[in-house]
């Protein structure tokens, strides 16, 4: 009986560890459900507990469903395996939580840095004059036309608010899925036959089916290097607004967002956060090269190699937001732009500098990229965003 009790105690110990392990995984943002944990317990009864590799493979098969979660899983599993005393694991988790808190303070610091007052450069002063010349009839209209780089205080908040109310809609694509359609080109034999039975077997009505239409996915690549500084914060707001449709009918089937400077950072997950401020903070924290140099070619190359096959499948449109100041390999930029252009439905380049009347697209980056771009548009004020909205709806 004492032996049984000891075994039961050992089992309880294991279960406790399993639950703690689940919590440990959740810290690393693996969404482990109770069902998955239960399945794992079931799986543990099937494998040899003395074989670390088998236990690990079992845990991975049941608990991990995305490749990107593997590194965290591996780390967590090592901790789990080492922890012989349940309290040890508990402490480990606590340790991680503390570490996480310090990361949060780090994040705040980075955020502060990113928000730091940036002095407008000389050419921006020109822009200012330009916009000054185009003073318009109402305050609202003036705000619509005002360059993002010159917004301050309340204006900035107002623009963010207006951005959030904009409705984004992408043109549709004809899919190969069929749905009932009075004017469709195919006969729906099943429904036709069913209906004919109500009419004594005579085919009076022919029921038709046609192709279903679906909104296209959108991929956004936003330059957050130093030269984009006056715009990048607001543009991130814009990207957030695009990825959070306000109405029930999302005008875009799927939005993927990336930031790039000298490297490529995927922001989709961070921006999925419901709260704007927290989403943008998380995004800013992810971006390691904020305000640094630009190597668009390398960033695009990384996108083409790692992401394009996964994201550009369903006739996606791609938006690149950049001023085209590039310190990287220009040949590479042209080459990767060409590749990107070939693999998406529409490639649109948005340039904030295009808003100023005397801007000429002569920087090396723009010269290399332009031949492979379908549309080249300004993105310096609210009016230009509205113009973009019209374009997207009618690609």
């Amino acid at each position: 009986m004492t032996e049984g009790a000891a075994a039961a105690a050992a089992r309880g110990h294991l279960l406790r560890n399993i639950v703690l392990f689940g919590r440990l995984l959740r810290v690393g943002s693996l969404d482990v459900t109770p069902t998955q944990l239960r399945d794992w317990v079931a799986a543990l009864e099937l494998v040899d507990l003395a074989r670390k590799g088998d236990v690990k493979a079992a845990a991975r098969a049941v608990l991990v469903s995305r490749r990107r979660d593997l590194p965290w899983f591996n780390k967590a599993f090592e901790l789990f395996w080492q922890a012989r005393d349940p309290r040890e694991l508990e402490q480990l988790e606590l340790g991680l939580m503390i570490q996480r808190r310090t990361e949060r303070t780090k994040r705040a610091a980075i955020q502060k840095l990113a928000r730091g007052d940036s002095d407008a450069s000389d050419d921006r002063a020109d822009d200012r004059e330009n916009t000054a010349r185009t003073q318009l009839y109402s305050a609202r209209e003036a705000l619509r036309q005002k360059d993002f780089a010159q917004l301050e205080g309340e204006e900035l908040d107002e623009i963010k608010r207006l951005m959030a109310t904009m409705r984004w809609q992408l043109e549709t694509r004809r899919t190969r899925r069929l749905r009932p359609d009075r004017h469709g080109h195919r006969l729906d034999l099943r429904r036709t036959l069913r209906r004919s039975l109500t009419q004594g077997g005579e085919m009076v009505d022919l029921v038709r089916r046609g192709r279903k239409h679906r909104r296209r996915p959108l991929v956004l690549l936003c330059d957050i290097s130093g030269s984009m500084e006056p715009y990048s914060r607001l543009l991130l707001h814009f990207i957030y607004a695009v990825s959070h449709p306000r109405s029930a009918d999302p005008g875009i089937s799927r939005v993927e967002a990336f930031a790039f400077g000298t490297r490529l950072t995927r922001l989709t997950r961070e921006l999925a956060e419901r709260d704007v401020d927290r989403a943008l903070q998380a995004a800013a924290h992810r971006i390691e090269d904020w305000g640094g140099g630009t190597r668009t070619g390398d960033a695009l190359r990384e996108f083409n190699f790692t992401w394009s096959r996964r994201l550009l499948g369903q006739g996606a449109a791609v938006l690149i937001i950049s001023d085209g100041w590039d310190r990287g390999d220009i040949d590479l930029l042209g080459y990767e732009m060409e590749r990107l252009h070939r693999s998406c439905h529409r490639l649109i380049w948005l340039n904030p500098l295009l808003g100023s009347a005397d801007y000429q697209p002569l920087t090396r980056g723009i010269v290399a990229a332009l031949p492979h771009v379908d549309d080249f548009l300004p993105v310096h004020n609210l009016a230009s965003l509205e113009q973009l909205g019209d374009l997207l709806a009618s690609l």
Partner: protein
Amino acid sequence: MTVSPDFRRSGARSAPRFPDVDAVISALRAEDYIAERDLATAIYLSLSMGKPIFLEGEPGVGKTEVAKALARCLGSELIRLQCYEGLDVSTAVYEWNYRRQLLHLRGLEAAGGGDARTAVDDVFSSDFLLERPLLRAVRQSRRGEAPPVLLIDELDRADEEFEAYLLEILADFQITIPEIGTVAAETPPVAVVTSNRTREVHDALKRRCLYHWIDFPDYEKEVQIVLRRVPEAPEHFAAEIVRLVQALREEDLFKQPGVAETLDWTNALIALDQETLSDDILRDTLGVLLKYQDDLDKIDDEAVCRLLRKSQSPGD
């Protein structure tokens, strides 16, 4: 949609279950599939727990092959559903045989009628039902045979609508046909889902499955695979080929060659009566390994020399 013709049906009434992971490894090996231990563990769990297995990995790492080998070693039928955009119930699950239904109705009419109600019941009975892979898999596991292996291949090519439908099927292997009723599997079929990641498959679906990412095999394993699958290849040649392919995977390529390419290339070299690699033959047959023009351009004369050097030094 294709139903693979190369199935082997066994007379066994129940599926042979494996006592442990090693048994899975050796059973697969007997069918010429060399599985890593963690893959075998996932398969073993999938069989024991009756859960579908979801395999992801680069094209050509042998995802589909897992299902085929599994069907062979379980002695059960392989039912394959190739996914594509727009795949719907009538091609994946079932369809009514309209031609027969119409002929039947006309026949009744010619024979002087019978009332409409019985005609409807007649026409919507299983005699007029065309089985598609999913229904077939569910029904098959009803007839007291070894449960079939259901391969849902390249799910990433299907659209979200089909994925949602599949979610329902994978949960309880039960299909409702409004005119007939519900068909449920008595023992769930062994379901294998594969994806090439041309699109992210929804998390909800992955969660219902056991997930496994198949990587490119290491050197030893790939040599074993080549020797198994191309028995004509001498061992030293197989080793040389694999070393070259592995070196090629380290090059900066848009699309790395998979195991399928290694096997194709080995077959090609054997067909060309080669016994060792040379720069000429490598240049001439590079198209078997690399499928993108950019990648072919990248492997210039200098790269060919470098790769050959690597392939000829076993110490590496």
